[in-house]
Protein backbone atom coordinates (compact mmCIF):
# COMPACT_ATOMS: atom_id res chain seq x y z
CA UNK A 1 0.00 0.00 0.00
CA UNK A 2 1.21 3.51 -0.68
CA UNK A 3 2.26 5.84 2.11
CA UNK A 4 -0.51 8.21 1.16
CA UNK A 5 -3.31 5.68 1.56
CA UNK A 6 -1.81 4.50 4.86
CA UNK A 7 -1.90 8.02 6.26
CA UNK A 8 -5.39 8.65 4.91
CA UNK A 9 -6.77 5.56 6.63
CA UNK A 10 -4.98 6.39 9.88
CA UNK A 11 -6.02 10.02 9.67
CA UNK A 12 -9.69 9.17 9.29
CA UNK A 13 -9.57 6.57 12.06
CA UNK A 14 -7.79 8.86 14.49
CA UNK A 15 -10.09 11.76 13.69
CA UNK A 16 -13.02 9.52 14.52
CA UNK A 17 -11.41 8.37 17.78
CA UNK A 18 -9.96 11.61 19.04
CA UNK A 19 -11.60 14.42 17.06
CA UNK A 20 -14.87 14.42 19.03
CA UNK A 21 -12.87 14.86 22.11
CA UNK A 22 -11.10 17.94 20.85
CA UNK A 23 -14.54 19.36 20.14
CA UNK A 24 -15.52 18.81 23.77
CA UNK A 25 -12.48 20.76 24.92
CA UNK A 26 -13.49 23.69 22.74
CA UNK A 27 -17.18 23.46 23.60
CA UNK A 28 -16.19 23.77 27.26
CA UNK A 29 -14.35 26.96 26.43
CA UNK A 30 -17.49 28.66 25.16
CA UNK A 31 -18.45 32.13 26.34
CA UNK A 32 -22.13 31.39 25.70
CA UNK A 33 -24.66 29.88 28.08
CA UNK A 34 -25.68 26.82 26.09
CA UNK A 35 -23.65 23.95 24.78
CA UNK A 36 -22.78 24.47 21.14
CA UNK A 37 -20.06 24.12 18.59
CA UNK A 38 -18.39 26.16 17.27
CA UNK A 39 -18.39 27.93 20.68
CA UNK A 40 -20.00 31.34 20.92
CA UNK A 41 -16.84 33.24 21.76
CA UNK A 42 -14.04 31.86 23.89
CA UNK A 43 -13.78 32.04 27.66
CA UNK A 44 -12.58 29.88 30.51
CA UNK A 45 -15.59 30.63 32.68
CA UNK A 46 -17.01 27.12 32.48
CA UNK A 47 -13.65 25.64 33.30
CA UNK A 48 -13.63 27.87 36.38
CA UNK A 49 -17.25 27.15 37.26
CA UNK A 50 -16.59 23.42 37.55
CA UNK A 51 -14.52 24.02 40.67
CA UNK A 52 -17.30 25.91 42.37
CA UNK A 53 -20.03 23.32 41.98
CA UNK A 54 -20.39 21.78 45.42
CA UNK A 55 -21.63 18.38 44.25
CA UNK A 56 -18.74 18.00 41.81
CA UNK A 57 -16.30 18.61 44.62
CA UNK A 58 -17.93 15.99 46.84
CA UNK A 59 -18.22 13.40 44.09
CA UNK A 60 -14.65 14.09 42.95
CA UNK A 61 -13.47 13.38 46.50
CA UNK A 62 -15.47 10.14 46.60
CA UNK A 63 -14.17 9.01 43.22
CA UNK A 64 -10.60 9.76 44.27
CA UNK A 65 -11.09 7.85 47.50
CA UNK A 66 -12.53 4.83 45.65
CA UNK A 67 -9.88 4.89 42.93
CA UNK A 68 -6.98 5.14 45.38
CA UNK A 69 -8.09 2.86 48.21
CA UNK A 70 -10.01 0.43 46.03
CA UNK A 71 -6.97 -0.05 43.85
CA UNK A 72 -4.61 -0.31 46.83
CA UNK A 73 -6.85 -2.95 48.40
CA UNK A 74 -7.05 -4.80 45.10
CA UNK A 75 -3.25 -4.81 44.94
CA UNK A 76 -2.98 -5.89 48.56
CA UNK A 77 -4.98 -9.06 47.92
CA UNK A 78 -4.18 -9.29 44.19
CA UNK A 79 -0.39 -9.39 44.38
CA UNK A 80 -0.31 -12.43 46.71
CA UNK A 81 -2.94 -14.11 44.52
CA UNK A 82 -0.98 -13.44 41.34
CA UNK A 83 2.15 -14.71 43.04
CA UNK A 84 0.45 -17.89 44.24
CA UNK A 85 -1.14 -18.56 40.84
CA UNK A 86 2.23 -18.07 39.18
CA UNK A 87 4.60 -19.84 41.49
CA UNK A 88 2.67 -22.52 43.34
CA UNK A 89 1.21 -25.79 42.28
CA UNK A 90 -2.26 -24.79 43.49
CA UNK A 91 -5.26 -27.04 43.77
CA UNK A 92 -8.28 -25.46 42.02
CA UNK A 93 -5.98 -22.92 40.37
CA UNK A 94 -8.31 -22.67 37.37
CA UNK A 95 -11.34 -22.09 39.59
CA UNK A 96 -9.56 -19.35 41.51
CA UNK A 97 -8.46 -17.73 38.28
CA UNK A 98 -12.02 -17.81 36.93
CA UNK A 99 -13.51 -16.36 40.10
CA UNK A 100 -11.03 -13.51 40.22
CA UNK A 101 -11.50 -12.76 36.51
CA UNK A 102 -15.31 -12.89 36.67
CA UNK A 103 -15.88 -9.17 37.32
CA UNK A 104 -14.56 -8.44 33.82
CA UNK A 105 -17.27 -10.59 32.25
CA UNK A 106 -20.24 -9.81 34.49
CA UNK A 107 -21.97 -6.61 33.33
CA UNK A 108 -21.40 -3.88 35.88
CA UNK A 109 -24.97 -2.69 36.13
CA UNK A 110 -26.03 -6.08 37.49
CA UNK A 111 -23.38 -5.97 40.16
CA UNK A 112 -24.42 -2.61 41.48
CA UNK A 113 -28.04 -3.70 41.66
CA UNK A 114 -27.14 -7.00 43.32
CA UNK A 115 -25.03 -5.31 45.97
CA UNK A 116 -27.71 -2.75 46.66
CA UNK A 117 -30.40 -5.39 47.09
CA UNK A 118 -28.51 -8.12 48.88
CA UNK A 119 -25.73 -6.39 50.80
CA UNK A 120 -26.52 -2.72 51.34
CA UNK A 121 -30.17 -3.10 52.33
CA UNK A 122 -30.24 -6.34 54.37
CA UNK A 123 -26.82 -5.96 56.03
CA UNK A 124 -27.12 -2.23 56.62
CA UNK A 125 -23.86 -1.54 54.83
CA UNK A 126 -23.22 2.06 53.76
CA UNK A 127 -23.33 2.98 50.08
CA UNK A 128 -19.73 4.16 50.30
CA UNK A 129 -18.67 0.77 51.65
CA UNK A 130 -20.56 -1.02 48.89
CA UNK A 131 -18.95 1.20 46.26
CA UNK A 132 -15.59 0.36 47.79
CA UNK A 133 -16.33 -3.39 47.51
CA UNK A 134 -17.45 -3.13 43.89
CA UNK A 135 -14.54 -0.97 42.79
CA UNK A 136 -12.05 -3.23 44.51
CA UNK A 137 -13.54 -6.34 42.93
CA UNK A 138 -13.61 -4.65 39.52
CA UNK A 139 -9.97 -3.58 39.70
CA UNK A 140 -8.80 -6.92 41.09
CA UNK A 141 -8.72 -8.80 37.74
CA UNK A 142 -6.57 -6.08 36.19
CA UNK A 143 -4.26 -6.05 39.19
CA UNK A 144 -3.84 -9.82 39.07
CA UNK A 145 -3.31 -9.83 35.29
CA UNK A 146 -0.76 -7.05 35.15
CA UNK A 147 1.20 -8.29 38.15
CA UNK A 148 1.08 -11.83 36.74
CA UNK A 149 2.54 -10.74 33.47
CA UNK A 150 5.45 -9.04 35.18
CA UNK A 151 5.94 -12.11 37.40
CA UNK A 152 6.01 -14.21 34.25
CA UNK A 153 8.95 -12.18 33.04
CA UNK A 154 10.80 -12.87 36.27
CA UNK A 155 12.26 -16.35 36.25
CA UNK A 156 11.34 -18.52 39.20
CA UNK A 157 14.90 -19.69 39.71
CA UNK A 158 15.74 -16.19 40.91
CA UNK A 159 13.83 -16.90 44.11
CA UNK A 160 15.39 -20.32 44.44
CA UNK A 161 18.81 -18.72 44.15
CA UNK A 162 17.86 -16.28 46.92
CA UNK A 163 16.68 -19.12 49.16
CA UNK A 164 19.85 -21.10 48.60
CA UNK A 165 21.86 -18.01 49.52
CA UNK A 166 20.07 -17.96 52.86
CA UNK A 167 16.79 -16.11 52.37
CA UNK A 168 13.58 -17.27 53.92
CA UNK A 169 10.76 -17.48 51.42
CA UNK A 170 9.38 -14.19 52.64
CA UNK A 171 12.78 -12.51 52.32
CA UNK A 172 13.14 -13.92 48.82
CA UNK A 173 9.86 -12.22 47.96
CA UNK A 174 10.71 -8.84 49.49
CA UNK A 175 14.37 -8.72 48.45
CA UNK A 176 14.18 -10.26 45.00
CA UNK A 177 10.62 -10.43 43.66
CA UNK A 178 9.22 -7.09 44.78
CA UNK A 179 12.07 -4.89 43.51
CA UNK A 180 11.78 -6.57 40.13
CA UNK A 181 8.01 -6.25 39.71
CA UNK A 182 7.79 -2.67 40.99
CA UNK A 183 7.10 -1.40 37.48
CA UNK A 184 4.29 -3.89 37.00
CA UNK A 185 2.74 -2.94 40.32
CA UNK A 186 2.82 0.74 39.45
CA UNK A 187 1.32 0.00 36.05
CA UNK A 188 -1.41 -2.05 37.71
CA UNK A 189 -2.10 0.82 40.07
CA UNK A 190 -2.49 3.31 37.24
CA UNK A 191 -4.67 1.00 35.18
CA UNK A 192 -6.78 0.23 38.25
CA UNK A 193 -7.03 3.89 39.16
CA UNK A 194 -8.22 4.90 35.70
CA UNK A 195 -10.66 1.98 35.51
CA UNK A 196 -12.17 2.77 38.87
CA UNK A 197 -12.26 6.52 38.36
CA UNK A 198 -14.12 6.19 35.03
CA UNK A 199 -16.43 3.39 36.16
CA UNK A 200 -20.16 4.02 35.61
CA UNK A 201 -22.45 0.98 35.25
CA UNK A 202 -21.63 -0.71 38.56
CA UNK A 203 -21.92 2.56 40.47
CA UNK A 204 -25.22 3.46 38.87
CA UNK A 205 -27.47 1.94 41.53
CA UNK A 206 -25.04 2.66 44.29
CA UNK A 207 -25.78 6.29 44.82
CA UNK A 208 -27.54 7.92 47.70
CA UNK A 209 -28.12 11.44 48.90
CA UNK A 210 -24.79 13.22 48.60
CA UNK A 211 -23.02 9.98 47.77
CA UNK A 212 -22.26 9.45 44.12
CA UNK A 213 -19.16 9.02 42.04
CA UNK A 214 -18.05 11.80 39.76
CA UNK A 215 -19.09 10.21 36.43
CA UNK A 216 -22.54 9.48 37.82
CA UNK A 217 -22.76 13.01 39.11
CA UNK A 218 -21.86 14.30 35.66
CA UNK A 219 -24.58 12.14 34.10
CA UNK A 220 -27.24 13.48 36.42
CA UNK A 221 -26.03 17.05 36.02
CA UNK A 222 -26.40 16.65 32.25
CA UNK A 223 -30.00 15.59 32.67
CA UNK A 224 -30.85 18.80 34.45
CA UNK A 225 -28.60 21.46 33.01
CA UNK A 226 -27.37 21.78 29.48
CA UNK A 227 -24.55 24.24 30.01
CA UNK A 228 -20.95 23.62 28.89
CA UNK A 229 -19.63 22.87 32.40
CA UNK A 230 -19.78 19.12 31.85
CA UNK A 231 -17.74 19.59 28.69
CA UNK A 232 -15.21 21.58 30.68
CA UNK A 233 -15.10 18.98 33.44
CA UNK A 234 -14.71 16.17 30.89
CA UNK A 235 -11.78 17.98 29.38
CA UNK A 236 -10.12 18.53 32.75
CA UNK A 237 -10.52 14.87 33.72
CA UNK A 238 -9.20 13.72 30.37
CA UNK A 239 -6.14 15.92 30.75
CA UNK A 240 -5.57 14.39 34.17
CA UNK A 241 -5.79 10.77 32.95
CA UNK A 242 -3.70 11.44 29.91
CA UNK A 243 -1.08 13.26 31.96
CA UNK A 244 -0.85 10.37 34.42
CA UNK A 245 -0.55 7.78 31.67
CA UNK A 246 1.92 9.89 29.74
CA UNK A 247 4.11 10.29 32.83
CA UNK A 248 3.88 6.59 33.58
CA UNK A 249 4.85 5.73 30.01
CA UNK A 250 7.81 8.10 30.17
CA UNK A 251 8.97 6.84 33.54
CA UNK A 252 8.54 3.11 33.19
CA UNK A 253 7.22 2.12 29.80
CA UNK A 254 3.70 1.57 31.11
CA UNK A 255 2.47 -0.03 27.87
CA UNK A 256 4.82 -2.99 28.36
CA UNK A 257 2.66 -4.17 31.22
CA UNK A 258 -0.85 -3.63 29.90
Amino acid at each position, binding site marked *: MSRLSIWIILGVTLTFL*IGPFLIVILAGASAGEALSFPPQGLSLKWYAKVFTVESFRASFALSMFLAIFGTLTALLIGIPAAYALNRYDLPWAETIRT*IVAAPIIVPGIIVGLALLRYIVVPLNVTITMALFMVHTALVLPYAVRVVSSSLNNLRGDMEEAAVILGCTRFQAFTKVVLPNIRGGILAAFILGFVTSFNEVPASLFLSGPGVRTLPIDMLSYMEITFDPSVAALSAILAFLSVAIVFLAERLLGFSRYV
Partner: protein
Amino acid sequence: MFLNRKEGLALALPAAFFTLLFFLVPVGILLSVAFQSDTGWSLNGYFEFFSKPLNRAVFWRTLKLGLLVAGASAIIGYAAAFCIVSLPPKSRGRIFGLVVLPLMISPVARTYAWIVILGRTGIVNDVIVGLGLSDTPIRLLFTETAVFIGLLQLFLPLMIISLVSAMENIPRDVIPAARVLGASWLQVFLRVILPLTKEGLVIGGTLVFTGALTAYITPAILGGSKVLMLETLLYQKVNVSNDFVSASVIAMILIVMSFTANIVLKRIASVRR
Protein backbone atom coordinates in the same frame (compact mmCIF):
# COMPACT_ATOMS: atom_id res chain seq x y z
CA MET B 1 7.20 -23.99 41.14
CA PHE B 2 6.60 -24.38 44.85
CA LEU B 3 4.80 -27.43 46.08
CA ASN B 4 3.52 -26.16 49.42
CA ARG B 5 -0.17 -26.04 48.63
CA LYS B 6 -1.37 -24.64 51.95
CA GLU B 7 0.93 -21.66 51.68
CA GLY B 8 -0.19 -21.05 48.10
CA LEU B 9 -3.85 -21.22 49.02
CA ALA B 10 -3.33 -18.84 51.92
CA LEU B 11 -1.99 -16.32 49.41
CA ALA B 12 -4.62 -16.84 46.72
CA LEU B 13 -7.79 -17.30 48.73
CA PRO B 14 -8.29 -13.77 50.10
CA ALA B 15 -8.68 -12.44 46.55
CA ALA B 16 -10.96 -15.30 45.54
CA PHE B 17 -13.13 -14.93 48.64
CA PHE B 18 -13.37 -11.19 48.23
CA THR B 19 -14.70 -11.52 44.71
CA LEU B 20 -16.90 -14.43 45.67
CA LEU B 21 -18.54 -12.78 48.68
CA PHE B 22 -18.85 -9.20 47.55
CA PHE B 23 -19.42 -9.84 43.88
CA LEU B 24 -20.44 -13.29 42.74
CA VAL B 25 -22.76 -14.26 45.58
CA PRO B 26 -24.96 -11.13 45.33
CA VAL B 27 -25.01 -11.48 41.55
CA GLY B 28 -25.94 -15.14 41.92
CA ILE B 29 -28.84 -14.30 44.21
CA LEU B 30 -30.04 -11.64 41.77
CA LEU B 31 -29.94 -14.14 38.91
CA SER B 32 -31.94 -16.66 40.89
CA VAL B 33 -34.80 -14.19 41.42
CA ALA B 34 -36.24 -14.79 37.96
CA PHE B 35 -36.43 -18.52 38.61
CA GLN B 36 -38.51 -18.14 41.74
CA SER B 37 -42.26 -17.98 41.98
CA ASP B 38 -44.77 -18.49 44.76
CA THR B 39 -44.94 -22.17 43.95
CA GLY B 40 -41.22 -22.88 43.72
CA TRP B 41 -38.84 -22.90 40.80
CA SER B 42 -40.19 -21.78 37.45
CA LEU B 43 -39.33 -20.14 34.19
CA ASN B 44 -42.38 -17.85 34.25
CA GLY B 45 -40.23 -14.75 34.67
CA TYR B 46 -38.59 -15.54 31.35
CA PHE B 47 -41.83 -16.33 29.52
CA GLU B 48 -43.39 -13.15 30.77
CA PHE B 49 -40.38 -11.07 29.82
CA PHE B 50 -40.26 -12.36 26.27
CA SER B 51 -44.03 -12.17 25.83
CA LYS B 52 -43.80 -8.36 25.70
CA PRO B 53 -43.01 -6.97 22.25
CA LEU B 54 -41.04 -4.05 23.68
CA ASN B 55 -38.72 -6.39 25.58
CA ARG B 56 -38.23 -8.56 22.52
CA ALA B 57 -37.46 -5.53 20.40
CA VAL B 58 -34.89 -4.32 22.91
CA PHE B 59 -33.32 -7.78 23.03
CA TRP B 60 -32.96 -7.96 19.24
CA ARG B 61 -31.73 -4.39 19.01
CA THR B 62 -29.03 -5.06 21.59
CA LEU B 63 -27.90 -8.18 19.77
CA LYS B 64 -27.99 -6.38 16.41
CA LEU B 65 -26.03 -3.36 17.60
CA GLY B 66 -23.51 -5.61 19.34
CA LEU B 67 -22.90 -7.56 16.14
CA LEU B 68 -22.84 -4.46 13.94
CA VAL B 69 -20.36 -2.69 16.19
CA ALA B 70 -18.16 -5.80 16.37
CA GLY B 71 -18.32 -6.25 12.60
CA ALA B 72 -17.63 -2.61 11.79
CA SER B 73 -14.77 -2.44 14.24
CA ALA B 74 -13.27 -5.60 12.71
CA ILE B 75 -13.29 -4.02 9.24
CA ILE B 76 -11.94 -0.64 10.33
CA GLY B 77 -9.67 -2.39 12.80
CA TYR B 78 -7.97 -4.50 10.12
CA ALA B 79 -7.39 -1.50 7.90
CA ALA B 80 -6.03 0.60 10.75
CA ALA B 81 -3.95 -2.19 12.28
CA PHE B 82 -2.43 -3.05 8.91
CA CYS B 83 -1.48 0.60 8.41
CA ILE B 84 -0.03 0.85 11.91
CA VAL B 85 2.22 -2.19 11.57
CA SER B 86 3.50 -1.01 8.21
CA LEU B 87 4.77 2.22 9.77
CA PRO B 88 8.40 2.58 10.85
CA PRO B 89 8.79 1.67 14.55
CA LYS B 90 8.98 5.22 15.87
CA SER B 91 5.80 6.57 14.33
CA ARG B 92 4.18 3.21 14.95
CA GLY B 93 4.60 3.73 18.71
CA ARG B 94 3.19 7.24 18.53
CA ILE B 95 0.14 6.31 16.47
CA PHE B 96 -0.47 3.31 18.68
CA GLY B 97 -0.35 5.63 21.68
CA LEU B 98 -3.00 7.83 20.08
CA VAL B 99 -5.21 4.78 19.56
CA VAL B 100 -4.83 3.74 23.21
CA LEU B 101 -5.31 7.27 24.53
CA PRO B 102 -9.14 7.37 24.31
CA LEU B 103 -9.32 4.30 26.58
CA MET B 104 -7.93 6.39 29.39
CA ILE B 105 -10.60 9.05 28.96
CA SER B 106 -13.89 8.74 30.82
CA PRO B 107 -16.59 7.15 28.66
CA VAL B 108 -18.94 9.87 29.90
CA ALA B 109 -16.71 12.49 28.34
CA ARG B 110 -16.26 10.50 25.15
CA THR B 111 -19.96 9.97 24.70
CA TYR B 112 -20.75 13.54 25.64
CA ALA B 113 -18.79 14.69 22.60
CA TRP B 114 -21.43 13.20 20.33
CA ILE B 115 -24.12 15.41 21.83
CA VAL B 116 -22.10 18.40 20.74
CA ILE B 117 -21.72 16.92 17.28
CA LEU B 118 -25.11 15.33 16.70
CA GLY B 119 -27.37 17.55 18.83
CA ARG B 120 -30.03 19.92 17.48
CA THR B 121 -27.55 22.78 17.53
CA GLY B 122 -24.59 20.53 16.82
CA ILE B 123 -22.07 20.74 14.02
CA VAL B 124 -23.78 18.29 11.72
CA ASN B 125 -27.10 20.11 11.90
CA ASP B 126 -25.34 23.46 11.45
CA VAL B 127 -23.91 22.15 8.22
CA ILE B 128 -27.17 20.62 7.05
CA VAL B 129 -29.19 23.76 7.73
CA GLY B 130 -26.40 26.00 6.49
CA LEU B 131 -26.26 24.18 3.18
CA GLY B 132 -30.02 24.38 2.92
CA LEU B 133 -30.44 20.62 2.82
CA SER B 134 -33.16 20.98 5.40
CA ASP B 135 -35.00 23.93 6.84
CA THR B 136 -35.10 22.66 10.39
CA PRO B 137 -32.51 20.63 12.27
CA ILE B 138 -33.09 16.89 11.82
CA ARG B 139 -33.06 14.45 14.68
CA LEU B 140 -29.74 12.70 14.89
CA LEU B 141 -29.55 12.06 18.60
CA PHE B 142 -31.69 9.33 20.14
CA THR B 143 -31.40 7.17 17.03
CA GLU B 144 -29.87 3.76 16.58
CA THR B 145 -27.29 5.35 14.34
CA ALA B 146 -26.16 7.65 17.12
CA VAL B 147 -25.84 4.73 19.52
CA PHE B 148 -23.98 2.73 16.89
CA ILE B 149 -21.51 5.57 16.27
CA GLY B 150 -21.02 6.13 19.98
CA LEU B 151 -20.38 2.46 20.69
CA LEU B 152 -18.07 2.10 17.72
CA GLN B 153 -15.97 5.01 18.87
CA LEU B 154 -15.88 3.65 22.40
CA PHE B 155 -14.74 0.14 21.55
CA LEU B 156 -12.82 0.42 18.28
CA PRO B 157 -9.50 0.95 20.10
CA LEU B 158 -9.83 -2.46 21.78
CA MET B 159 -10.12 -4.14 18.36
CA ILE B 160 -7.22 -2.19 16.89
CA ILE B 161 -5.00 -3.05 19.85
CA SER B 162 -5.81 -6.77 19.60
CA LEU B 163 -5.23 -6.83 15.86
CA VAL B 164 -2.00 -4.83 16.02
CA SER B 165 -0.50 -7.21 18.55
CA ALA B 166 -1.66 -10.17 16.46
CA MET B 167 -0.16 -8.67 13.30
CA GLU B 168 3.11 -7.92 15.02
CA ASN B 169 3.46 -11.66 15.52
CA ILE B 170 3.14 -12.43 11.82
CA PRO B 171 6.58 -13.58 10.66
CA ARG B 172 8.26 -10.72 8.85
CA ASP B 173 8.53 -11.90 5.28
CA VAL B 174 5.34 -13.90 4.97
CA ILE B 175 3.32 -11.20 3.23
CA PRO B 176 5.97 -10.33 0.60
CA ALA B 177 6.42 -14.08 0.14
CA ALA B 178 2.73 -14.52 -0.61
CA ARG B 179 2.84 -11.55 -3.03
CA VAL B 180 5.84 -13.01 -4.83
CA LEU B 181 3.96 -16.31 -5.13
CA GLY B 182 1.27 -14.41 -7.01
CA ALA B 183 -1.40 -13.65 -4.41
CA SER B 184 -3.55 -10.55 -4.86
CA TRP B 185 -4.03 -8.29 -1.85
CA LEU B 186 -7.43 -9.83 -1.23
CA GLN B 187 -5.91 -13.31 -1.35
CA VAL B 188 -3.10 -12.19 0.94
CA PHE B 189 -5.67 -11.00 3.41
CA LEU B 190 -7.92 -14.07 3.22
CA ARG B 191 -5.22 -16.72 3.08
CA VAL B 192 -2.37 -15.25 5.09
CA ILE B 193 -3.32 -12.33 7.31
CA LEU B 194 -6.73 -13.55 8.43
CA PRO B 195 -5.64 -17.05 9.50
CA LEU B 196 -2.57 -15.69 11.26
CA THR B 197 -4.46 -13.01 13.18
CA LYS B 198 -7.53 -15.06 14.00
CA GLU B 199 -6.75 -15.13 17.68
CA GLY B 200 -6.41 -11.37 17.84
CA LEU B 201 -9.68 -11.02 15.97
CA VAL B 202 -11.40 -13.33 18.43
CA ILE B 203 -10.04 -11.48 21.46
CA GLY B 204 -10.90 -8.11 19.95
CA GLY B 205 -14.30 -9.31 18.78
CA THR B 206 -15.21 -10.65 22.20
CA LEU B 207 -14.11 -7.46 23.90
CA VAL B 208 -16.03 -5.24 21.50
CA PHE B 209 -19.18 -7.37 21.39
CA THR B 210 -19.47 -7.83 25.15
CA GLY B 211 -18.47 -4.21 25.66
CA ALA B 212 -21.26 -3.04 23.37
CA LEU B 213 -23.79 -5.37 25.01
CA THR B 214 -23.03 -4.15 28.48
CA ALA B 215 -22.38 -0.48 27.82
CA TYR B 216 -24.70 1.75 29.77
CA ILE B 217 -23.54 5.31 29.19
CA THR B 218 -23.73 5.34 25.42
CA PRO B 219 -27.30 4.09 25.02
CA ALA B 220 -28.33 6.20 27.99
CA ILE B 221 -26.94 9.45 26.58
CA LEU B 222 -27.26 8.87 22.83
CA GLY B 223 -30.29 6.57 22.81
CA GLY B 224 -32.30 7.74 25.75
CA SER B 225 -35.68 6.12 26.20
CA LYS B 226 -36.25 6.12 22.41
CA VAL B 227 -33.50 3.63 21.69
CA LEU B 228 -33.41 1.33 24.69
CA MET B 229 -30.82 -1.37 24.97
CA LEU B 230 -30.81 -4.15 27.55
CA GLU B 231 -28.75 -2.20 30.05
CA THR B 232 -30.89 0.92 29.87
CA LEU B 233 -34.01 -1.23 29.92
CA LEU B 234 -32.76 -2.90 33.10
CA TYR B 235 -32.20 0.51 34.68
CA GLN B 236 -35.74 1.56 33.75
CA LYS B 237 -37.29 -1.66 35.03
CA VAL B 238 -35.67 -1.12 38.40
CA ASN B 239 -35.95 2.64 38.78
CA VAL B 240 -39.29 3.24 37.10
CA SER B 241 -41.32 0.09 37.67
CA ASN B 242 -39.47 -1.65 40.51
CA ASP B 243 -39.59 -4.83 38.45
CA PHE B 244 -36.80 -6.97 39.83
CA VAL B 245 -37.86 -10.13 38.04
CA SER B 246 -37.35 -8.47 34.66
CA ALA B 247 -34.06 -7.04 35.92
CA SER B 248 -32.94 -10.52 36.87
CA VAL B 249 -33.98 -11.89 33.48
CA ILE B 250 -32.06 -9.15 31.66
CA ALA B 251 -29.03 -9.77 33.87
CA MET B 252 -29.08 -13.45 32.94
CA ILE B 253 -29.49 -12.65 29.23
CA LEU B 254 -26.51 -10.29 29.33
CA ILE B 255 -24.31 -12.83 31.08
CA VAL B 256 -25.37 -15.68 28.81
CA MET B 257 -24.76 -13.54 25.71
CA SER B 258 -21.29 -12.54 26.89
CA PHE B 259 -20.35 -16.11 27.67
CA THR B 260 -21.80 -17.47 24.46
CA ALA B 261 -19.92 -14.89 22.42
CA ASN B 262 -16.77 -15.90 24.23
CA ILE B 263 -17.24 -19.60 23.60
CA VAL B 264 -18.52 -19.37 20.03
CA LEU B 265 -15.72 -17.09 18.90
CA LYS B 266 -13.12 -19.32 20.55
CA ARG B 267 -14.64 -22.31 18.72
CA ILE B 268 -14.50 -20.55 15.39
CA ALA B 269 -10.88 -19.66 15.96
CA SER B 270 -9.84 -23.20 16.84
CA VAL B 271 -11.91 -25.13 14.30
CA ARG B 272 -10.37 -23.46 11.27
CA ARG B 273 -6.87 -23.97 12.59
